[in-house]
């Protein structure tokens, strides 16, 4: 009968878990856009940063180099890759340097006289036409004749070529075999992805698409494909982090299982003890899928780490079982303290919710639901399933000796002020900056990747990702006009060598005013025909050959000026669309900078412009964003700390007892901070999250050590439970501390140090354990 009920309960529990699992599989939509883990931007620069991080032209650009084969083969591969990728909706722009008039829509061809600056300097008069026609005649007798012959009737002044040159990348690489080549003999391409740059999952797919297309090309066997760019880096960084986290995770899981087997000598107990944590995890994800349309991948990764606290609940239950006593009774005695621990952890994690950052709010929903589910299933389900009789750990000789050792430790009252002073001194003398604001420093890229990026970027003349020139105006035309006025100054800067190239929106589309001005300069049909007749007198061109040219000029005279909207339909318009963006009620022009050498000169340009243009330093903006982010988390933590003091005091019904729990926890937390700072570690957001996790664990140690049951056996069981918890935490996070990736090391080191300090201080500062023990003896 008893067994039957147990089996039924276990089956029901497993069934419930399966149901949750099904719900999760049905509803879970994971997202990997890092931006949902950033706080809402407050300044205009931060807002721009958030957009640029995802959608800016620089962040979506992938640099591609093909190598390992003769140039002719590589050029063929380069053309093949362009053909394949251009047809793929995942990429908005694929260029390899091959000149293609197709980039200018034929419907837009008459616009060439409005888009090119030639007419600003040079009227279409007889002298100009005569010179141009003579040059064309020379061209026709040269080897280049076949290139120009088709163009000649429509465009004898080669205005389309002038435009193509104007729109070519500011510092185009060398062209061999018709496509771009690096000095090292690699064929170069630029690919702009539709996916946001810092969405590693979408970028991974875009990169996989390029690799597949390349491998599918005939003749690609033996050739190499090399990629670079922000999107590629985000993929590399997340893959590296995942690989290392995975193998560390596997090792520590094995260690963890062995440790628990050693501690409890029961496979059944071990398997059952896994159920509360599994329930917590599943319930957490299920809650997320119900509350949020998309769940962030980082939420899950961090969430499982933070949920590690819940593993303590079943461990406490297992360690505190008394000989001959049924598990339900042991739990009942333990429950008030366990409930306090659960509530405290929930309050700490509530701080994430108060931060207002979407990703962290998800984290809070996940962990709080998970902790409650794990806690309550430990209380109300697990004990009914555990074997009726279990070994009482209190009788183990080594534990008796260990407890005696712990009890004999001196507990001087001055330990608290000593630790406080020590932490304060260490913090004061610590070298370097306190906060690490550069998130990229936590997932650093191998030096050779960065060198390769710099080399390809220089070869391709691709813009730097860090600086942008921002032009603001109420209308798109206003932006274009300001951009045009800026062009001479910018050209002067480039000529002076302040940068290799600066690209402004007006490079691709002049303002309507300028286009109308150029229209005004175009001759009417009669004038043009007269000039053309005079210019071609004595030259062997067929009469009427230039009729298409005359027709184009005539059409250009009455065209409505080209707008960004109309331009957007053509491939080059897409390029412009990335540089001219609409923001609530006004427009922004984004100028890109390549090969910047003199930041001060650009700053001076921005300052001298009277607000027409600003220099946006995306790195600085991101650091200010991180600082703002941290401030919010710290404020939320301060609130959570107050709540925690209240909760502990109320549940222990004594300020003095609350002090004995909270003081070691607080001191240990600051001691971890101090030790890391003295070791030269700059504190990042990941350190903060890890400190909170360690704090949650430390709170458990302090709560249980502080508990006075007046029973030495029970004190021994507490020590046993705490030792198992401490060792398992050290095992998992100590392994992470050896990781070579800073973000994993930051979490591992912080939690390991924290667990060690919390354990020592909560023993040394537990006031009356020895007294109780002595009395009982």
């Amino acid at each position, binding site marked *: 009968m008893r067994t039957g009920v147990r089996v039924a309960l276990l089956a029901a529990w497993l069934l419930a878990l399966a149901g949750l699992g099904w719900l999760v599989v049905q509803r879970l939509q994971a997202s990997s856009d890092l931006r949902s883990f950033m706080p809402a931007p407050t300044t205009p620069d931060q807002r721009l940063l958030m957009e640029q991080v995802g959608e800016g032209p620089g962040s979506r650009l992938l640099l591609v180099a093909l190598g390992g084969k003769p140039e002719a083969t590589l050029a063929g591969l380069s053309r093949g890759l362009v053909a394949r990728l251009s047809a793929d909706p995942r990429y908005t722009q694929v260029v390899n340097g091959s000149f293609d008039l197709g980039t200018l829509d034929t419907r837009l061809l008459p616009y060439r006289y409005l888009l090119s600056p030639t007419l600003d300097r040079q009227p279409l008069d007889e002298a100009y036409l005569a010179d141009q026609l003579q040059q064309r005649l*020379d061209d026709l007798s*040269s*080897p*280049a*004749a*076949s290139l120009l*012959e088709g163009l000649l009737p429509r465009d004898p002044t080669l205005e389309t070529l002038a435009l193509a040159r104007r729109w070519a990348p500011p510092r185009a690489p060398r*062209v*061999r075999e018709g496509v771009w080549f690096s000095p090292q003999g690699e064929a170069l391409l630029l690919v702009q992805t539709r996916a946001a740059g810092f969405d590693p999952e979408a970028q991974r797919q875009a990169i996989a698409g390029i690799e597949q297309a390349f491998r599918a090309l005939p003749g690609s066997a033996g050739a190499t494909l090399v990629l670079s760019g922000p999107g590629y880096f985000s993929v590399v960084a997340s893959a590296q982090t995942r690989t290392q986290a995975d193998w560390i995770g596997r090792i520590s899981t094995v260690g963890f299982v062995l440790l628990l087997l050693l501690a409890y000598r029961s496979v059944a107990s071990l398997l059952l003890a896994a159920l509360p944590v599994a329930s917590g995890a599943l319930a957490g994800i299920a809650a997320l899928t119900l509350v949020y349309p998309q769940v962030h991948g980082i939420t899950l990764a961090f969430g499982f780490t933070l949920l590690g606290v819940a593993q303590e609940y079943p461990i406490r239950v297992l360690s505190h079982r008394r000989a001959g006593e049924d598990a339900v009774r042991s739990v009942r005695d333990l429950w008030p303290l366990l409930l306090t621990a659960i509530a405290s952890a929930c309050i700490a994690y509530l701080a994430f919710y108060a931060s207002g950052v979407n990703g962290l709010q998800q984290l809070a929903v996940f962990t709080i639901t998970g902790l409650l589910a794990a806690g309550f299933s430990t209380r109300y389900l697990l004990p009914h399933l555990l074997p009726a009789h279990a070994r009482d750990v209190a009788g183990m000789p080594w534990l008796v000796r260990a407890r005696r050792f712990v009890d004999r430790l001196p507990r001087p009252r001055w330990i608290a002020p000593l630790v406080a002073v020590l932490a304060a001194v260490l913090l004061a003398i610590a070298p370097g900056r306190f906060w690490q604001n550069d998130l990229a420093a936590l997932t650093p890229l191998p030096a050779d990747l960065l060198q390769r990026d710099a080399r390809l970027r220089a070869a391709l003349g691709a813009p730097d990702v860090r600086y942008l020139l921002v032009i603001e105006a109420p209308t798109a035309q206003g932006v274009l006009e300001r951009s045009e006025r800026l062009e001479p100054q910018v050209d002067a800067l480039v000529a002076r060598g302040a940068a290799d190239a600066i690209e402004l929106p007006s490079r691709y589309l002049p303002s309507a005013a300028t286009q109308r001005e150029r229209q005004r300069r175009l001759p009417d049909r009669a004038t043009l025909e007269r000039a053309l007749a005079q210019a071609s007198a004595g030259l*062997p061109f067929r009469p009427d050959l230039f009729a298409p040219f005359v027709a184009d000029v005539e059409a250009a005279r009455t065209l409505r000026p080209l707008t960004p909207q109309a331009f957007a339909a053509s491939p080059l318009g897409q390029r412009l669309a990335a540089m001219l963006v609409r923001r609530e009620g006004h427009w922004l022009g984004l100028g890109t900078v390549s090969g910047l050498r003199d930041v001060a000169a650009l700053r001076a340009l921005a300052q001298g412009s009277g607000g027409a243009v600003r220099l946006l330093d995306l790195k600085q903006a991101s650091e200010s964003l991180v600082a703002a982010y941290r401030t919010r988390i710290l404020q939320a933590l301060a609130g959570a700390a107050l709540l925690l003091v209240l909760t502990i005091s109320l549940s222990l019904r004594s300020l003095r007892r609350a002090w004995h729990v909270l003081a070691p926890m607080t001191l240990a937390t600051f001691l971890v901070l101090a030790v890391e700072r003295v070791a030269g570690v700059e504190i990042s957001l990941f350190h903060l999250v890890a400190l909170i996790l360690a704090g949650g664990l430390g709170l458990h140690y302090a709560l249980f050590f502080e508990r006075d049951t007046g029973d030495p056996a029970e004190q021994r069981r507490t020590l046993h439970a705490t030792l198992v918890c401490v060792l398992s935490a050290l095992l998992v996070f100590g392994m992470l501390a050896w990781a070579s990736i800073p973000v994993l090391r930051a979490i591992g080191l912080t939690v390991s140090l924290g667990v060690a300090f919390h354990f020592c201080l909560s023993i040394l500062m537990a006031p009356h354990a020895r007294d109780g023990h002595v009395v009982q003896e």
Partner: protein
Amino acid sequence: MLLCSLILSWSAAASSAPDATGELIAALGRPAPARTAFAEARFMQVLERPLVVSGELAWLGGDTLERHVTRPHEETARIAGGEVTQQRAGKSARSFSLERAPQLRVLVDSFVALLGGDAGRLRKAFAIARRGDAAGAWTLTLTPRDVDVARTVASIRIDGQGREARCMWMQEADGDVAVDLLGPLAARMPDAPTRESLATLCRGG
């Protein structure tokens, strides 16, 4: 036995024509660097009268060709490493890829193979037809095998006498023709050439 000798003589007869072509091509070969005077008349759809230029053509070995024009303007074009570089008096050099000018690639292929006496290379790129007469005058007609190339260049015709090539005709698919008079014949380019007068010149008239 009879059958066997019949087959042998058949195959000998079948291979005799290409052999003669091969011999002719081998005989046309010159050691690099090889230079020759040239005068070119281009008949183009866009022009009423042909364009005439003259100067020197040079094969510098490998795939490197140089076309040095002295009249009416100084201009040097050099084709090397898949690239064409043009240098005009008083202007900066311009270059473009050979990929973009199939006519030039055909020119390089045929010219280099002929001057190198390399019948194999010539046959790889072109279908070759040969006509000759008893007086030693001959005509080679090269038709590009590559379909893409044939779309722009219909054929190349070389007229010669004995071991000398006299003229080169490049017939483009759109009807344009470029006629190059080579060697001593270059000096005899008429002031107002027509296709007919050039054909007569090339036949040795």
